[in-house]
């Protein structure tokens, strides 16, 4: 079914998802959201989960984040820590920018001076130094996502889970944030599991693009993306590959519609 099943067990997978199913409700109302999904994410890998709405990609992310329980199968993250980003920045309005970034550090038990220093570094990473004392509502949507990214980085997570983080932004801001995310991913050696319904975005960012079918969500295909980085979203390589994946996605959607 999934080509991953034939590739066998990878040795340094950070996230190992095997035959994971997720059902909501029970009896005749039961809804199968994910159907025997298998997927390994290696350390340092940037994996994009792609699919039409209702394919359970956000569900899969919630499962990996531990916000929801799997119905069957095995999901291993080996006690690793995860951080999660959403389409909304979900910053806390009662805290300043630096307060938001410092909160995970505070929960880790870091002292005040140490927190301030680390938050400053992280704001530098997302290029928001100088905005530390602003309130979230004083920032633009793109800047808020940068703060959310800094906050996620502050969690010292092994895996960064991103659920359409740039979905609400305009194309220009999104384009810039793609560059930034790619840079930070490389500099910080992050492992990223990135959910999107935007094919070009997936090809622009991913080492691999996992295509999911809808209702129930299944892995249809695993596309390795080998174009050299940094990529441009409007380059012929990215466009070409995106077209190929879009065709595959269309075929899948059409198969469901009929």
């Amino acid at each position, binding site marked *: 079914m999934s080509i991953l099943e034939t590739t066998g067990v990878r040795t340094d997978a950070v996230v190992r998802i095997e035959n994971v199913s997720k059902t909501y409700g029970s009896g005749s109302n039961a809804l199968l959201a994910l159907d025997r999904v298998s997927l390994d994410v290696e350390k340092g890998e940037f994996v994009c989960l792609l699919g039409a709405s209702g394919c359970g990609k956000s569900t899969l992310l919630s499962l990996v984040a*531990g916000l929801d329980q799997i119905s069957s199968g095995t999901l291993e993250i080996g006690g690793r820590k*995860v951080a*999660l980003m*959403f389409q909304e920045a*979900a910053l806390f309005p009662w805290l300043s920018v630096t307060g938001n970034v410092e909160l995970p550090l505070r929960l880790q038990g870091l002292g005040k001076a140490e927190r301030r220093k680390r938050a400053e570094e992280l704001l530098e990473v997302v290029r928001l130094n100088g905005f530390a004392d602003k*309130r979230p509502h*004083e920032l*633009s949507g793109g800047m808020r996502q940068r703060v959310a990214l800094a906050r996620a980085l502050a969690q010292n997570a092994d895996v960064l889970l991103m659920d359409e983080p740039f979905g609400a932004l305009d194309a220009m801001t999104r384009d*810039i944030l793609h560059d930034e995310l790619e840079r930070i991913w490389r500099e910080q050696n992050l492992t990223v599991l990135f959910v999107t319904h935007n094919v070009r975005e997936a090809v622009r960012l991913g080492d691999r693009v996992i295509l999911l079918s809808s209702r129930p969500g299944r892995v249809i295909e695993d596309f390795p993306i080998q174009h050299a980085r940094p990529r441009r979203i409007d380059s012929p390589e990215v466009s070409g590959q995106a077209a190929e994946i879009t065709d595959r996605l269309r075929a899948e959607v059409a198969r469901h519609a009929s």
Partner: protein
Amino acid sequence: MPAETAVSDSTTAATNAVTLTKGRAANEVSGLDALETAPQRDKGRLGLRIWASAWPKLLALAIVIGIWEAAYLAEWRPSYLLPPPTEVFPQLWDLITTADFWNGIRLTMTRAITGFSLAVAIGTVLGAAVSRFAPLRAAIGSLITGLQTMPSIMWFPLAILLFQLGEKAILFVVVIGAAPSVANGLISGIDYVPRTWLRVGQVMGMSGLAKYRHLILPASLPSFVSGLKQGWAFSWRSLMAGELLVMVPGAVSIGVRMQNARDLTDSGLVISYIMVVLVIGILIDQLFNFADNALRKRWGLTGN
């Protein structure tokens, strides 16, 4: 030689390109985001702003005094029952310049603050408990809302039976009048903490006390402040009703003074006390509004 130039040219170009890309991100972000971020609003001149908010109030006040004066001139009631503003305002001034009056204010405000503080403490504990434990919510959740609609004066007969004509009877009614509002404010604040915030907190590893301290309590603050404001209004009303009904010997509160003025058919004094109570109510309401607005501004909840 030409080949070398070409090589060095392309190197320079490459270096330029790198610098450009590096600089580009930062510059463009500030350019685009500058458009999107909220602009600093012009504060305007202070005097003008005060005048703009003051004149409608002053006009309204003038109209009320005008109607009062007209009622007096038309001899709607005998002048000893309805004295004119020109008599009452000097009387009010004479009243508030006596030390005795301020003793009464001190007594009444002490009761108000004691009762309200107690109501806040009880309401907060009650609200936190109800939002935390589902069976408790099922048991008394709707009762708390019901209590809010109960006119507090209805509690006095029972309060007098339980506590006799004493401070405790007044305190009981003030607390029972205000605590449900405080509890409800906290409950709805906790209930409507956005789901994504909770998920963020969970992923950050918040649980138990840390979750309350860093997420639930701050997130429910605006609703809690609304509850406090409403609770204050209820406790102030309950207190005034209490001071008119429950006369504690030796305690010459604002309510007692007003009742005495009525007994002496001193309408001017009764009206003066009405104005005093009204002004105190308005001042404290403004205090709560100030806190509420400051909070909203800090959170960016005010529309631009």
